[in-house]
């Protein structure tokens, strides 16, 4: 186990979290130290399994989670060189997500925690995405970004297949929800448009790759959602419909649509909407720091647009490295650590909650009885 950075060596013992994440189609386990040092980050992707169905099939995902759960946990502990006795707690995603998938991780985490005699900490998946930004040392000992966690307060844009949320974060467990999507989540819109354009699964990354193949973001004039003045909510269904209309009109006229142009124009429209509302939220709250989180934070158009426009306005922007944007357990380990440090504990009756809320809440949200 040589080659780890100084950060690992100096972190104190007793703050190791084993984290488990099974909310969708990645079976993941990680060992995280002090909420910031990744000691192991194992992600068994099921993408190949679901590709032929054109999307995630919940029953198939749940079956696969059960098969992979023990091997993935075993590998995480092995890679971290950690014995169960070294662990401070077991953290697990309790929701939101696919209920059958979540139940595998929750059931496993509860029995592991009980078997080892360790505390259990239920974590909200969205909170996990945000805390991916607190991970500062990678599995191989490399420093991530500037090696420092984000400073409070900050404004967080969480964008994924299930969520588009603007959240003002004042401290650990202290947050205020400012806006959310009224219809499709940003990632959902990417997936649907990818399907309409004829791309496979997973749609978001494929669409991003296509847009980067020299697509012209100004080729198509797509609508930006207009919600009532002052709202920080998002709406993407009109934009998705506009893309479908472009394709239908072209088909009727027997014309070929430049798919790279359409992908680039759509990506830019989504990015503009997200950045507009984020900058508006920054003005309202006076926040000077913007943090991106979630799978869509890996989108290159969003990253570029946010960096350009926020920095022009004197705001700082940060986002996790690509592999920590998509679902993983290291982020759950980071969020779980700060919950654990704040005294949050879940009971053995912790349940999976597919619609677990995440709004103006304190640390108690996931606490069992």
């Amino acid at each position, binding site marked *: 186990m040589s080659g780890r950075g100084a950060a690992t060596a100096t972190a104190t013992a007793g703050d190791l979290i084993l984290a488990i994440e099974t909310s969708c189609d990645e079976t993941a386990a990680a060992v995280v130290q002090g909420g910031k040092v990744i000691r192991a980050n194992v992600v068994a992707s099921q993408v190949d399994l679901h590709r032929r169905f054109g999307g995630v099939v919940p*029953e198939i995902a749940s*079956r696969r989670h059960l098969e992979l759960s023990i091997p993935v946990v075993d590998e995480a502990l092995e890679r971290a060189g950690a014995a169960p006795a070294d662990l401070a707690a077991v953290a697990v995603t309790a929701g939101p997500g696919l209920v059958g998938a979540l139940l595998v991780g929750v059931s496993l985490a*509860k*029995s592991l925690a*009980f*078997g080892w005699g360790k505390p259990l900490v239920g974590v909200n998946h969205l909170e996990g995405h945000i805390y991916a930004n607190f991970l500062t040392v990678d599995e191989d000992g490399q420093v991530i970004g500037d090696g420092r966690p984000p400073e409070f307060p900050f404004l967080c844009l969480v964008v994924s297949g299930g969520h588009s949320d603007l959240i003002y974060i004042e401290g650990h467990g202290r947050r205020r929800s400012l806006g959310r999507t009224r219809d499709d989540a940003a990632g959902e819109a990417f997936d649907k448009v990818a399907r309409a354009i004829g791309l496979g699964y997973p749609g978001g990354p494929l669409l991003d790759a296509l847009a980067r193949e020299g697509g012209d973001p100004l080729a198509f004039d797509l609508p930006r959602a207009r919600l009532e003045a002052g709202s920080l909510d998002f709406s993407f269904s009109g934009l998705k419909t506009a893309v479908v209309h472009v394709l239908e009109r072209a088909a009727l006229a027997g014309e070929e649509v430049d798919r790279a142009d359409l992908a680039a124009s759509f990506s830019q429209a989504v990015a503009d909407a997200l950045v507009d509302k984020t900058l508006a939220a920054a003005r309202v709250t006076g926040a000077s720091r913007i943090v991106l989180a979630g799978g869509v934070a890996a989108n290159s158009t969003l990253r570029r647009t946010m960096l350009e426009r926020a920095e022009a306005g004197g705001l700082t922007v940060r986002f996790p490295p690509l592999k920590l944007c998509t679902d993983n357990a290291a982020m759950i380990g980071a969020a779980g650590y700060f919950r654990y440090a704040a005294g949050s504990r879940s009971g053995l009756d912790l349940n999976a909650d597919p619609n677990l809320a995440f709004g103006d809440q304190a640390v108690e949200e996931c606490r069992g009885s």
Partner: protein
Amino acid sequence: MIVLGLETATNVCGVALVDDDRVLAEFSTAGRLTHSQRLMPLVEQALGEAGIDRGRLDGIAVSAGPGSFTGLRIGLATAKGLGYALDRPVLAVPTLDALAFNVWAWPGLICPLLDARKDQVYAALYRGSPPTGGRSLRRLGGYWAMDLGALLERLSAFNEAVLFLGDALPRYGPGIAERLGAKAHFVPVSGRFPRAAAVAELGLRRLAAGRRPGAAEARPIYVRQSEAEVKARARARARRAATNDGSR
């Protein structure tokens, strides 16, 4: 030896602790709370009331199906976690085996039936052992998911008395009685549900026979594929058929 048994294949959530000749604790509930909320608290309670430290367990036995897919996974994931954490074998006991074991001494055919939804039952057929026979329950054939008509067709080939039990009886009992007449016998309500103690005892027998499967090895018995796979396979068959026709 002490074995913990978990039963979550149907709407009954059960936990039991057995040793070689006693049931040390057994809880069964079919209340409003989900298995996910119930199971681990009952495990903790069973160990606490029996005064058994979890480190003294020799194995974890779990009802492996067929049954509710979600219920099976809650049971299996829990058993795997306990087995892994305690470094003990995890014994996947077929749910229908454990159910038939409730009435192992019946001198004839035993047919446990679970409601499989979609107008089907999960079933298997066993030959019981009269107390003087000294042998254990013998299963005739596999674990089935089929409609009642197909099942009764199979049973009628035997032309002998059959004892039925399981949670499918309220729905299918009258149809069975009508078809089989005096040959059909039904276990009373209190004896017809899956019991964690039976799962634990069958697990203990496997341990005693030297079996030591690890936590990663324990697998559920779904019997049925997922809907998506069934449909995908049907589509692939249709495609193949179309291609074959075209090439002729």
